[in-house]
């Protein structure tokens, strides 16, 4: 579904990480780990086609991508429900029920509240709800566990399991405090800088 060969990204004329190679098939999870500053976010953004790789090839045959990054893309002036409704209309996945998705991520109590009143963890859950709405094959998750309580971490693992079980794929970047349990997991250990 997603193949990367020798991809690299340069900033200030220095490679951010050593060239990355992997192949990801449906039902597989790619776990991107590495020290702080090794370019996990950069790699995810390259895979998301937000950044253009300086060299190397990415072959992406996934039917749609979804992305949860550091900036969650939630509008403060809209309520949780309005945020999700907009994303549903924008993505054209109108058969999904927003209220149901909100229940799944445990935000029913605050669904009508403006997003500015949410805590960091609740915002993360709102972004996860968007993932569920998106009906995409490839998920790109950048530190999905940050800011979440134990229950939230379980929630991420649960929806991730469901997604992978139904044939999706996922690239997950984490600094390693928690690892999702999934049999078909590939590892990608990023090393910063150029090849010595």
């Amino acid at each position, binding site marked *: 579904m997603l193949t990367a060969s020798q991809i690299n990204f*340069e*900033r*200030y*004329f*220095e490679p951010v990480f050593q060239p990355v190679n992997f192949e990801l098939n449906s039902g597989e999870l790619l776990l991107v780990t590495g020290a702080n500053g090794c370019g996990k976010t950069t790699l995810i953004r390259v895979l998301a086609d937000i950044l*253009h790789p300086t*060299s190397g090839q990415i072959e992406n045959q996934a039917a749609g991508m979804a992305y949860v990054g550091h900036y969650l893309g939630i509008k403060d002036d809209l309520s949780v429900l309005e945020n999700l409704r907009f994303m549903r209309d924008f993505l054209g996945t109108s058969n999904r029920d927003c209220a149901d998705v909100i229940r799944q991520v445990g935000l029913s109590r605050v669904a009508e509240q403006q997003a500015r009143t949410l805590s960091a963890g609740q915002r993360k859950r709102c972004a996860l709800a968007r993932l569920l709405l998106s009906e995409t094959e490839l998920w790109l998750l950048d530190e999905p566990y940050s800011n979440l309580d134990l229950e939230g971490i379980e929630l991420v693992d649960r929806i991730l399991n469901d997604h992978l079980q139904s044939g999706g794929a996922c690239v997950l970047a984490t600094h390693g405090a928690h690892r999702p349990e999934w049999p078909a997991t590939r590892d990608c250990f990023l090393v910063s800088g150029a090849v010595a």
Partner: protein
Amino acid sequence: MTTETAIQNKPRKNALVMFIHKMGSPPWFYNFSGKLVPWLWAVFCSLAAWALYLGLFKAPADYLQGESFRIMYIHVPSAWMSMMIYTSMAIMGFIALVWRIRIVEVLAMSSAPVGAAFTFVALASGSLWGRPTWGTYWVWDARLTSELVLLFLYLGVIGLYNAIDEPRKAARAACLLAIVGAVNLPIIHYSVKWWNTLHQGSSISVTGGSNIDPSMLWPLLIMALAVKFYYGANLLTRARVRLLEQDKRKAWVRKVIGEDKS
């Protein structure tokens, strides 16, 4: 160097393609342009000296404008260059954006200050020409007005390039702006020209004389040719310095500096 190995792995193509490939590699470009620059300066100096000798000493005084027409030999080539450099910057910007060639990005961005300098010279000499001709230093004449707008366009490109930290991102943004400006430039030029006739401002253009005497025309043409060599030499010099600055931690720069010392 990754670029060098990439070239070696490629199958041999014809000489032109090989040349373009090589020019894309910073060390090769640095060495090649280093050999070219002195020659460009030499051609510029001799052509400019010849043109100025003809224009300032040999050409007779104009029967309408007297001696002041001699400002033409600096004003008109500068004005032509200011437009030409903007166009070439936009074309290089387009190439840089589409094919992501770093050397072309650097060349496009090195063009901007040279173009801005020519625009400034055109404006200053034009206004000094205006004083004897119109009796005032500034008239909203079509050529001066479009040069002024062009100067703002140049300043925008330079400003944007300097405002963004990451050099390649900055170059790409400024290249895009240059392209947008180049699309607008003809529209600006013609609308300003037309605005000028509309308001019956100074309809006497300083360069209005259509049948100009050959003894006055030749110096102009030679000067116009000379400043193109100036642009080439200055552009390559600036591009070389920028490459050194950007690649200061790379091995090829180390080698070049080491050779310089010995």
